[in-house]
């Protein structure tokens, strides 16, 4: 590498030695609009990382920067110890599965999959075998001679996967590949995708706006919000320990409790529980499934601050099969939502409780 590159490398912290892909302080603007405002992210080899975010959060732009379809304004992208961001896109060891699959309509399924091999001048003798192996992998062998237009959405996606994976990329980029599929097919393709990733052991970077999909598939989720990373963590971690109120609300459903903490006790309206937060205003996230029905007599007992107990009026009860969704009016215009397994039909005032440890302190959002 030339000297200016090593100089750049000294300015930003070095990538951890086990990272395959390292994104360092990446900034991207379109005209005056900042789309990415300083993203740093390391991806381990063999990892399934999901970039999750609302539309406009910059998740697709980040993917396009890695693929090389866009040029970054500041920062660096490294792959296995080498600068990636100044490599022309057709020479990068990454492949993309596009949102609409982008299969070549004038080429057969076989020729679509062979395209990358031919472009890189793979030995002609090994092309048919590698193509058919890739098609076997996605169970599309018998469609080799079909035109892409005759395939269903799920089949097209399988071909797009085979077309990318046949090139044995270091990293596979997937840009919302399931957004065009109906719910059932989407679930099926998710399962297939996950097992395929385990099978080939290639690093997947998956972009989606669907938090359920992100949780089902990923080793880690990077939640992007307005061009900044809000939290990067494993699905269970990001669900049970959201770092901000935005994360808590985006991943799953939650109740945000604005509490006043003093002397180790949090007060949110009439609800009190034990808190280890320093005194002052604190925002808590409480998942609906953490709220339980309490025995009517429990409230009369001496207050046990390890368990918060409160009374509330049932405003609404929605049957949901295994769990019912309750809207509980706790007075002072405080509404809590609870998911309670098979409570039967409830009405009027009821007693509820939750463990103090289930109320998670989150950083309140700093609105721009």
């Amino acid at each position, binding site marked *: 590498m030339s000297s200016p590159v090593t100089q750049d490398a000294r300015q930003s912290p070095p990538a951890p030695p086990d990272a395959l892909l390292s994104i360092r302080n990446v900034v991207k603007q379109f005209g005056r609009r900042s789309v990415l405002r300083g993203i740093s992210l390391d991806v381990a080899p063999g990892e399934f990382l999901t970039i999750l975010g609302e539309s406009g959060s910059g998740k697709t732009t980040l993917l396009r920067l890695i*693929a*090389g*379809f866009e040029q970054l304004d500041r920062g660096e992208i490294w792959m296995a110890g080498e600068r990636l961001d100044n490599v022309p*896109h*057709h*020479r990068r060891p*990454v*492949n*993309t599965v*596009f*949102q*609409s699959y*982008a*299969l*070549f*309509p*004038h080429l*057969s399924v076989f020729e679509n999959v062979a*395209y*990358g091999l031919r*472009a*890189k001048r793979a030995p002609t003798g090994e092309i048919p075998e590698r193509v058919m192996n890739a098609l076997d992998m996605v169970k599309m062998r018998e469609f080799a001679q079909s*035109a892409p237009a005759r395939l269903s959405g799920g089949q097209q996606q399988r071909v797009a996967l085979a*077309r*990318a994976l046949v*090139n044995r990329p270091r990293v596979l980029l997937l840009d919302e590949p399931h957004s065009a599929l109906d719910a059932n097919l989407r679930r099926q393709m998710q399962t297939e995708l996950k097992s395929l990733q385990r099978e080939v052991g290639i690093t997947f970077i998956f972009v989606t706006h669907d938090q359920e999909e992100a949780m089902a598939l990923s080793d880690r989720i990077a939640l992007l919000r307005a061009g900044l990373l809000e939290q990067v963590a494993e699905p269970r971690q990001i669900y049970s320990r959201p770092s901000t109120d935005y994360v808590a609300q985006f991943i799953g459903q939650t109740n945000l409790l604005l509490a006043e903490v003093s002397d180790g006790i949090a007060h949110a309206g009439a609800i009190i529980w034990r808190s280890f937060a320093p005194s002052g205003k604190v925002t808590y996230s409480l998942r609906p499934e953490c709220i339980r029905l309490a025995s009517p007599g429990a409230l009369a007992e001496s207050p046990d601050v390890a368990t918060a107990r409160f009374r509330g009026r049932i405003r609404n009860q929605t049957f949901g099969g295994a769990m019912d969704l309750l809207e509980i009016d706790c007075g002072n215009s405080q509404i809590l939502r609870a998911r309670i397994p098979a409570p039967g039909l409830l009405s009027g005032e009821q007693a509820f409780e939750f463990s103090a440890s289930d109320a998670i302190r989150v950083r309140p959002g700093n609105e721009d």
Partner: protein
Amino acid sequence: MYTRAYKASVAIPPLLWVTVFLLVPYAILFCYSFWSVSAFQAIVHNWNLQNYLQLMRNPIYLSVLFRSMRIAGAVTVLALLLGYPLAYYVSFHAAKRKDLLYQLVIIPLWASYLVRGYAWKTILGSEGVLNGFLQYMHITHHPVEFFLYSPFAVVLTLTHIYTPFTFLPIFASLEHVPRNLIEASHDLGASPWATFRRIVLPLSLPGILAGATFAFVLTLGDFLAPLLVGGPSGIMISNIVVSLFGAAYNWPLGAAISLCMLLIVVGLLMVTERIERRLTLS
């Protein structure tokens, strides 16, 4: 479902149009081509094949027909060579100037064909702009005569006139090439040139075929450009038809030539349609 009355009211106008302005005239032409002209310049209705035989035997007709096809071929190739890069640039690289450039290509179509023909006459003539420039620059000392009144002048004029006709369908087909296919091609490691050759060019072939058909068919039937800038050596088959229907007053022979041209054009359209169907099916 549509009512019978609706279906009829939709179908009858085009059917009437085709019958009155296409089928009936061609039927009349067809009849004429088997009649002959008497010694007293009257058309007599004795059915015979004389006109077609004369067409085959008289080398003038065939040589002019072949020349017309050569000129049409040359115009087609030149118009494609100009129209394709133009359409490619406007579609892929013009960015904000796309609409403006598109209009600039289209605007000449609004000017009368005759005006453009005369413009070339003014440019190419012995007292014309081009000769004036060459003499002013001392490149030539006498007016160059062969610019005007030659097949060259006809090809030049018709290329200028029909390039927008090749541009339009090619531009439309390039606009329909999904841009993510180009990204996908680069993503799979294909160079920009390989991407053009394997993705963009094949997907724009229908546009190329349509543009080529326009240029070839319109040139083959053209008679104004040879009249204005062609001179005796630039005569095309339509000029002969015009004179046969006019001064020469031999409508039967003119009709026979017209029908031969019609057969050539229809044959050509059938071939291109087959090619196009094969392209779009695969």
